[in-house]
């Protein structure tokens, strides 16, 4: 999350919003959010309905839920989908930013 926070302005400049879906209950999520001073839109999903909708992988016998990232363009179409296989398996921001540049050029 720190990488995303560092580059948040670059996302904003490319007309993108970062929306973080957290499975935690609201109280814990708010504490985490305030402690880290995150600038994103934070949504809590206590019933995991969006996690299920987006097909986030759950590895019950490993580390729990795996990270996932979906870039949705202004038309609501998914342009990048990444399902991580470990907590370290996260796409680089540069990749997302380059894709946003591409989308903005085409629009």
């Amino acid at each position, binding site marked *: 999350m720190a990488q995303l926070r560092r580059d948040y302005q670059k996302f904003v400049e490319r*007309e*993108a919003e970062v929306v*973080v879906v957290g499975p935690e209950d609201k109280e814990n*999520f708010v504490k985490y959010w305030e402690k880290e001073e995150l600038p994103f839109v934070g949504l809590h*999903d206590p019933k995991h309905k969006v*996690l299920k909708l987006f097909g986030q992988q759950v590895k019950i016998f490993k580390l729990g839920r795996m990270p996932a990232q979906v870039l949705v363009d202004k038309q609501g179409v*998914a342009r990048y989908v990444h399902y991580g296989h470990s907590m370290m398996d996260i796409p680089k921001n540069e990749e997302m930013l380059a894709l946003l540049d591409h989308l903005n050029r085409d629009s």
Partner: protein
Amino acid sequence: MPQVEIDTPAPDFELQDLDGRTVRLSDFHGRKHVLVVFNRGLS
């Protein structure tokens, strides 16, 4: 489990933000791209 496929419409959803406001993915349509992030740690 179904997963989101590239170049297809992402399923819309509706959740509350930390201030209790309802946010839909479709709220951003026509205005902003959205990077939806699930379960990232602090890295």
